[in-house]
């Protein structure tokens, strides 16, 4: 698909324009099928004939019983090798004007018995579904795109990562339901984390090993044994959603037991360090610091999210002791009382989510 991009467009595009593979969309969305009946879906970062999101919802329009599908995008996409003329004879310039596609019906328009993207194009031609130019530039923040958002029930897309925080904030403020792709670091954003903490947002099923392969017009510069032609490999990729899925209610089976040697306490906050999510002890009732990827295993009936290092340390003052013994003393990080191998007597931790077990088993270790 991306190979069809005109050079002109690739030049204009930002570095964060990737296309999600159809199979990845299928693998995630099969868990959400029950949510779509009678709903209006908006894909507002997706060129209809480039984007697999648009294709997915067209192909599944009837099975999911959608009411309406809206995509906002740039025009000028080739479909199945032939140029779809939307507005008569456009100039090259006009082909890049933003437009919106609205689909309310998908059926066999060309009489071959099948319903494929060919029929989708035909239904646009016949005017049964519509394609119109947008007045503005198609930016999701523009007034006309905002009113489309108001109309939508569920938003499904892969927004530009550079604008993720603003994008997801907009959806959350407008109380929209969504399934969108983002980087795992986004869960630490100040505009995102509070929603995760309050169980108003969670992570979806995700990609194997949290690694995604996107179709990309750019060269894959990442060196990896899993390189794939025409694809860019991006690690730390997750689905963010506020639609309920089974996975959030699956309890993590805990098998480790607490002992102070394996689970040392931080020096500047009353919590133990748990370096791996699978090592969370089953019998510790206090606060625990876990890696941010814990969020992929989080079941709100099992754990309570107390905060993150930067929220629980928001009013903290860094002790002189740490300041004198660490050359990168940061107020908002947790420290362990052990040398870090780089000449510091304290080890500064990566970002940690602070959790508490709602139903800990009786502790076996006796404090001496």
């Amino acid at each position, binding site marked *: 698909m991306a190979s069809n991009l005109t050079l002109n467009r690739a030049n204009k595009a930002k570095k964060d324009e990737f296309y999600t593979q159809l*199979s990845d969309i299928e693998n995630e969305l099969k868990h959400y099928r029950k949510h779509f009946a009678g709903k209006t879906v908006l894909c507002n970062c997706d060129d209809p004939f480039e984007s697999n999101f648009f294709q997915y919802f067209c*192909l599944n329009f009837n099975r999911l019983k959608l009411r309406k599908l809206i995509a906002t995008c740039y025009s000028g996409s080739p479909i199945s090798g032939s140029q779809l003329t939307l507005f008569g004879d456009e100039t090259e310039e006009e082909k890049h004007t933003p437009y919106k596609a609205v689909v309310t019906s998908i059926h*066999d328009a060309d009489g071959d*018995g*099948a319903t494929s993207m060919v029929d989708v194009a035909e239904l646009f031609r016949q005017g049964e579904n519509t394609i119109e130019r947008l007045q503005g530039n198609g930016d999701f923040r523009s007034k006309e795109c905002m009113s489309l958002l108001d109309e939508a029930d569920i938003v499904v897309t892969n927004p530009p990562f550079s604008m993720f925080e603003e994008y997801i904030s907009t959806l959350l403020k407008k109380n929209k339901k969504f399934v969108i792709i983002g980087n795992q670091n986004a869960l630490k954003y100040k505009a995102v984390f509070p929603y995760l903490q309050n169980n108003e947002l969670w992570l979806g099923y995700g990609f194997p090993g949290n690694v995604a392969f996107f179709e990309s017009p750019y060269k894959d510069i990442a060196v990896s044994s899993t390189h794939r032609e025409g694809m860019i490999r991006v690690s730390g990729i997750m689905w963010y959603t506020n639609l309920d899925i089974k996975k959030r209610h699956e309890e993590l*089976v805990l*098998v480790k037991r607490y*002992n102070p040697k*394996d689970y040392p306490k931080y020096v500047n906050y009353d919590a133990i360090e748990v370096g791996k999510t*699978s090592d969370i002890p089953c019998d510790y009732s206090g606060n625990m610091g876990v890696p941010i990827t814990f969020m992929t295993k989080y079941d709100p009936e099992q754990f309570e999210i107390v905060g993150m290092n930067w929220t629980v340390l928001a009013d903290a003052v860094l002790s002189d002791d740490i300041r004198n013994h660490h050359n990168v003393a940061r107020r908002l990080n947790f420290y362990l009382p052990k040398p870090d191998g780089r000449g510091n007597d304290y080890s500064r931790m990566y970002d940690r989510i602070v959790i508490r077990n709602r139903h800990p088993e009786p502790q076996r270790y006796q404090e001496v």
Partner: protein
Amino acid sequence: MTMDIKECRIKVSAVYENYENDEEEGVTGYNDRLDIRPKYQREFVYKPDKRDAVIDTVLQGLPLNVMYWAKTGEDTYEVLDGQQRTISLMEYVDGNYSVEYDGNSMNFDNLPQDIQQRILDYELFVYICDGTDSEKLKWFKTINIAGERLTDQELRNAVYAGTWTASAKKYFSKSNCAASRYGSNVGCEGYVRGDSIRQEILETAISWIADRDHTTIDGYMSQHQNDQTAQELWSYFRTVIDWAEGLFTQYRKEMKGLPWGIWYNQLNKKTADLDPKDLESKVSKLMCDEDVQKKSGVYEYLLFGNENALNVRAFSERDKRQAYERQKGVCPLCGKQYPIEKMQADHIKPWSEGGQTIPENCQMLCTQDNIKKSNR
């Protein structure tokens, strides 16, 4: 009841009736009468190209290889062979993925009606086998030659399918499952050999609890087949690992693969007064002892006093000859003279009391006296 193998042709549409796919609950079809993938069974990730090839085969009307179903009840079955092919077909008909058809991505629903019908009417060629549990087990082992070989325990899981097995798999059968991570230092993988995915950890756990109950793995599984949970097995297993960890506080790789559960069944009441610190110093000393040739036997020796487990170094032929000549062939215990081949080497100061395997600690005893001495 005799073993019965039936050839059947079963339409895709019949298997698709009430098809359910739930990662925790397993995959069922054939109007709830067929376990396509039981709970917690190995979840193969079927590569898209393989998956697409199945659909392609069906679209072209070519035959898929034969599949095997095991009869598990009055009118209920479990797929024993053909799981992935079945799931690929069902997932496609269920509309969960698209394949290229005529140059376009198509979900099942997007295909022309007649092509959809062609898939639904496609007949799977299935062997359904029925018999007693042991007959089925024997039969499974016989046909267990094609494709992905099943381990003995995987076959047992199929034969004794039910609530208990499903629950046991939750603890023992997933990669990185609870059992494989249980324990305060190394996880149970430090104690049990095998692969959780291939059901080998589960097999070991059941063999231990079966030993406790004086039965076999099959006996235990058939007895508990309809229990609601395998909680008993899980807590028993944890107790065994805790017991081993509590006695031998310093983990060593020689502890892996020893019959901890069997020993626990025999000893758990008697080891309460053993001092872990004292045990550790003994383990450490024996590990350094050059005469101990089988280091993994140290644990059995300390628990049972069984010196054979250590495979203590024997006197060499040279040492024996020297002692024989020194004694002039006379056995010091009975005073009679023997040819060397009727005598055996013995530690003068027993090895267990610190006597080493060195020439000056070697004496030759007549065979009878040596047997008497070691039985004392």
